[in-house]
């Protein structure tokens, strides 16, 4: 199998079936480039943790084609070049913070002198220096999570897989972790982030994949994934919100259209929202005193703007709106559920 050296993770087909009947992963295909922060999203039970655990040899795949750091998936020796922070990691309670980091460093084959130095550095980085010699038994969940992060980095890994790294961490700590991930990216490390915190993922990830029911349904950079859902929003001024939609509808000379062509997220669509199509075929939605034009092309939005102004309506604002990751995620998951429902 040939592997692209620019890819830290290159999965062609990863499948996992539990007990011969539960299909956790159904042929995952995913590429993570070196030096980027990659976010893996998905609803509960999508198979995110299973995928990460397969890469970390914790779960045995039913089928695994692809590479991690240019070596076959689940290659034990490659684990010396990776770091892993599991979801709900548990440390032996009798270890101190420093002993824990050094212990896992030794298991990761870090030479003794280096791991002592790394332990000090990392405990400082995760803000645990003052608790270095305290036993983990006395730590809060957030403190344990910081230790888990430190041990994941103790071998100075090329690829770091983090499963819910900010779980239980306070807001200051979360920001610290985000900053740390940024530094890791600057240092050329690859970060694979598995998280439910969509806001965080959006803030720090270069590329994301959305996993639904064991399959990658979306994958790409934040811009690529949200560009096709960018729309323009025109806010009208001085209209009765209850009548604004109808007034705009008349001004634009809309024709009715299917709801799937609407620009906004499905949750925003209520029975009062009017959807139609402009004469050039561009979708448009009227939601109270807001008109959304379903096109990333400003020229098309300009047509709608001109018609509204021609009808004497006052424009308060006109702006492009990029879909949030949360909107994209919910739309993707809901659309998958609809397809599944339709298939039934």
């Amino acid at each position, binding site marked *: 199998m040939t592997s692209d050296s620019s890819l830290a993770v290159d999965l062609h087909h990863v499948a996992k079936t539990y007990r011969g009947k539960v299909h956790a992963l159904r042929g995952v295909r995913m590429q993570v480039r070196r030096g980027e922060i990659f976010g893996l999203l998905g609803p509960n039970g999508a198979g995110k943790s299973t995928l990460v655990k397969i890469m970390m040899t914790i779960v045995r795949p039913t089928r695994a084609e692809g590479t991690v750091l240019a070596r076959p998936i689940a290659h034990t020796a490659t684990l010396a070049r990776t770091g*892993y922070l599991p*979801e709900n990691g*548990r440390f032996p309670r009798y270890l101190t913070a420093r002993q824990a980091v050094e212990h896992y460093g030794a298991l990761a084959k870090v030479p003794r002198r280096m791991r002592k130095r790394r332990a000090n550095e990392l405990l400082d980085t995760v803000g645990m220096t003052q608790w270095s010699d305290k036993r983990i038994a006395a730590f809060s969940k957030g403190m344990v999570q910081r230790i888990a992060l430190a*041990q994941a980095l103790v071998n100075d890994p090329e690829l770091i897989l983090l499963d819910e790294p900010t779980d239980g961490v306070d807001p200051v700590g979360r920001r610290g972790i985000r900053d740390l991930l940024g530094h890791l990216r600057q240092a050329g490390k690859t970060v694979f982030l598995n998280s439910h915190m969509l806001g965080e993922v959006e803030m720090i990830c270069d590329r994301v994949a959305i996993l639904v029911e064991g399959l990658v349904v979306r994958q790409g950079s934040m811009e690529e994934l949200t560009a096709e859902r960018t729309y323009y929003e025109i806010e009208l001024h001085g209209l009765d919100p209850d009548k604004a939609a109808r007034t705009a509808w008349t001004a634009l000379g809309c024709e009715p259209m299917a709801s799937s062509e609407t620009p906004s997220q499905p949750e925003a669509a209520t029975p009062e929202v009017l959807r139609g199509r402009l004469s050039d075929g561009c979708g448009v939605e009227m939601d109270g005193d807001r008109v959304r034009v379903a096109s990333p092309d400003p020229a098309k939005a300009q047509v709608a703007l001109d018609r509204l102004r021609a009808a004497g309506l006052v424009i308060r604002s006109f702006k492009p709106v990029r879909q949030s990751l949360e909107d994209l995620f919910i739309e993707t998951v809901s659309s998958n559920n609809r397809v599944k429902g339709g298939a039934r």
Partner: protein
Amino acid sequence: MSQTLTILNDGLRRLRARKIFWLAMVLTILVAASQATVGINEQGLTFLGYQLDTPMLSTAQMSPEAFYKLMFTNVGLSVWLSWIATILALISTAGIFPDLMAGGTIDLVLAKPIGRLRLMLTEYVGGLLFVTLQVAVFTGISILIIGIRGGAWEPGLLLAIPIVVAFFSFLFCVCVGLGVLTRSTVAALLLTIGFWFGLYVLNSVDSVLINLRAEGDILIERRERAIADMESALEQTAQTDTDGESRMRPRLENHRRELTRQRDQQATIERIHKGIVTAKTFLPKTGETIDLLERVLVSTAELPGFDEDDFSEPQAPGDHSIGYVPQSQLQQRVVAMTRARSVWWILGTSLAFEVVVLGGAAWIFCRRDF
């Protein structure tokens, strides 16, 4: 290698963090040291300086060296190390694998570049450290006591360390196998103790059957000798004393019938015993393993009650003592039968059992998804 040492070091840390480890160590030291409170002289035993008149246990019967060695093997080893300390060790180590395999813990370890088989075997060896430390401390103190009070420095006692560790490993492998299978400390511990109890029952039955066989052998030999004597006497009397012959012949017939019955009974016992021994072949020989040390350290001549003069033979043909078996003769026969079992059979088959159980546990551990 550094990974292996790290895991073993972690095993030691884990032990030191447990109160039961320190409790067991303190008790071990106390029990070992308490051997020094008992002494032996011409009149009998002494305890904390008080004289106890026990003529059967005095230097007339055995040397101080043999006394202390027997005390070490029969009390220290057979009672303390192989029962009480073992239970404490099982309680302390039963959780090693269920804890290791708990969600969140195993993830951190398996994500490191260490093979699952190596991880499992190293953790297993780490579990044996508990008993190794205990028995090493106990043996060290005992060597000092035997040297100072018994007047003999017996480095052979150090054999207790591998023997007790081997004995414990036969149970610990079952505990590990059950821990890997069920991931429950309580289930692993209780089922292991149940298994151990099963072995104890099997060993007890074996022991009873050995006694019955030894006793039966002696009785049959005696009756055969009595019959031979009577036949010889009958030949002599037949020519001279017809009355005597007519009196002896029914008794001879009676002996022959009794011998046939005894042989049938002995054959049945031997058949049952063979079944028990066959079953034991596939199981760990816990009792025999512990007895190996006594076999090495104490010769039969040093064992109390092994005086040849004690053996009372039938005095005359048809002697009524034909059905009586002297305890010393029976004991000697039992020890001979027990010691006839080879070290290979005792340790080899037990270790084979351990390999099979550990192999099964490793197969599960290496294939399991966590």
